[in-house]
């Protein structure tokens, strides 16, 4: 919700988040390179440059897997929401770790030759037609490209620049990037792996990422189905007044699949789009704080009666018309243009 773009708007939560992330990365790399017992049962040690590329490659894989678990975890259990808050820093750090892996690979496997290293990278194995010996590096290059694009466009400046729907679609590429990364490991390292731990972790994490997304998706469709919207003329009956907690949002699905957020506050009711203008966070899971709808993801705020962010901010979301009839809440499913004022329904005066 910045008017002026600064590289990062720091606050104590972000410091803690980044410190913990960095601590995890540093411990991982240091233990991998320095403290693991390398001599044990090996005729010779793994070359240091290869050890280094493995340390950073495996670290990037684990980080990316963890990032992808946070979204569905927060949807399944709101107590995980603080992990979502600063996810983009985690993403940028993961890109840095992955880039380090890639440059260590290129500066070891593709050097010392008469061929230029970058030419060698794309020409020394071109057996795209076969399974065993497939140039798995191509999957790594693609994943790195995805991480680069996402890291570069992670700032809210680009979110505004591209518009949130496009930005969101762009950032969905992370899933393609992750799939490509799993292929990178399956077609490469795992073809010859006889070690027990990393291959198990790869299978464990790729399955966990997948299952958590399925579980979170299921939870949402079940929730949508259990809220039965009844159509009454132009209006849709979406909820009972007593189901709405004061100063809380309430998510309701419309027959078209769209979700809206209804808020009860100060003896009034208002409805807006459920999608935050920032990153589509679920506003209906938010609260009314200082009279404003507050997004549960990064805390962007909107006035409930017109969907406008308080000055000096400029974000706007769509509003909806409401009716209260014998304790039933009815909504007109046609959204108003973002920022349109709608008089809140006063709870005292049921129609």
């Amino acid at each position, binding site marked *: 919700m910045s008017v002026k773009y600064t590289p990062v708007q720091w606050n104590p*939560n972000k410091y803690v988040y980044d410190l913990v992330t960095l601590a995890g990365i540093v411990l991982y790399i240091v*233990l991998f390179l320095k403290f693991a017992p390398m001599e044990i049962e090996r005729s010779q040690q*793994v070359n240091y440059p*290869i050890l280094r590329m493995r340390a950073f490659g495996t670290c990037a894989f684990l980080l990316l897997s963890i990032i992808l678990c946070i979204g569905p975890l927060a949807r399944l259990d709101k107590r995980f929401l*603080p992990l979502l808050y600063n996810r983009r820093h985690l993403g940028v750090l993961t890109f840095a770790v992955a880039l380090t892996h890639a440059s260590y690979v290129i500066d070891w*496997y593709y050097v010392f030759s008469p061929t230029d290293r970058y030419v*060698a990278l794309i020409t020394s194995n071109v*057996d795209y037609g076969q399974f065993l010996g497939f140039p798995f590096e191509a999957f790594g290059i693609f994943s790195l490209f995805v991480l680069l694009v996402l890291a570069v466009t992670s700032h809210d400046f680009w979110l505004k620049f591209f518009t949130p729907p496009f930005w969101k679609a762009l950032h969905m590429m992370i899933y393609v990037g992750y799939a490509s990364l799993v292929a990178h490991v399956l077609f490469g390292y795992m073809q*010859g792996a006889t070690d027990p731990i990393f291959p198990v972790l790869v299978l464990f994490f790729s399955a966990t990422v997948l299952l958590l997304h399925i579980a979170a998706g299921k939870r949402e469709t079940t929730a949508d189905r259990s809220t039965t919207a009844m159509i009454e003329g132009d209006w849709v009956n979406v909820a009972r007044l007593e189901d709405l907690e004061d100063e809380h949002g309430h998510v309701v699905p419309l027959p078209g699949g769209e979700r809206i957020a209804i808020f009860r506050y100060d003896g009034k009711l208002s409805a807006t789009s459920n999608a935050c203008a920032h990153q589509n966070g679920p506003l209906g899971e938010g*609260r009314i704080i200082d009279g404003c709808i507050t997004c549960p993801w990064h805390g962007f705020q909107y006035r409930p009666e017109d969907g406008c962010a308080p000055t000096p901010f400029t974000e706007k979301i769509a509003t909806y018309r409401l009716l209260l009839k014998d304790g039933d809440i009815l909504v007109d499913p046609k959204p108003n243009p973002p920022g349109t004022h709608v008089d809140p329904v006063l709870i005292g005066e049921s129609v």
Partner: protein
Amino acid sequence: MAKTHDDFFVGYIRGVPRGSRALIILVILAFVGAMSGAGYFISATQPDPGPGRFFFQHKAFTGILETAPYPLVRVAPNETYPEGHTLLLAGQGKRGVQATAAALAGKVVDVGGVLLKRGTIDMLQVGRRVPLQASVDGLSDDAREAIDLSVTDLGTWRLTGEICDGKCYVGAMRPGTGIAHKACANLCLNGGVPAVFVSTAPVEGTEFFLLSDQNGNPIDKELQRFVAARVQVDGQIERRGDLMVFKVDLNSVEVL
């Protein structure tokens, strides 16, 4: 009437809500613990990369140079090799020494550098101090007599194993084998480093073979398709001194 909402997290206003605090602290501990454990154990359980390695002491040898399928020297008995030895040659990095070797085929040469060893295979990485050159002092008749120039045909064999680049395999990279290393191996082979075959079962005591095509020439680029994979190959085995050469039939290669 205004609630405190202290169960609701707003990152720029306050810390983690009380209801989430225990879980978040647990997540932080689990993250740091899991990263430490994973780093340690993934590293500690990496597969054995094999015993190949460099011996960084400069050595010089005199012997007879052969250039097919790849440059090699039949070394006369000396301090390092009292029985004499057949040494594979490679240049610096991912390069062969074909260019200098061509003019010296069959001649007595001096050559120095550092050795790479793994099992029965020794490779000399030719250095600058004693480059590959026509021998300055030549060989005495006795020394020349002592070089085992015999070529013995050991018949036709079907072997299972891996096609590798001879330099990474003998220790320039650890590991220098396997699919993860395939592009690197191809790059070495393109540069002229000798191709070797590592068999899963030994033939007459050795698992290591220098590769050639059926006519004794360097293997075709076609064969790079099979590098690093587990393959089955038919061919004729030839013993040259103490080096085994596997003359493979390109059409017989099968990925297992």
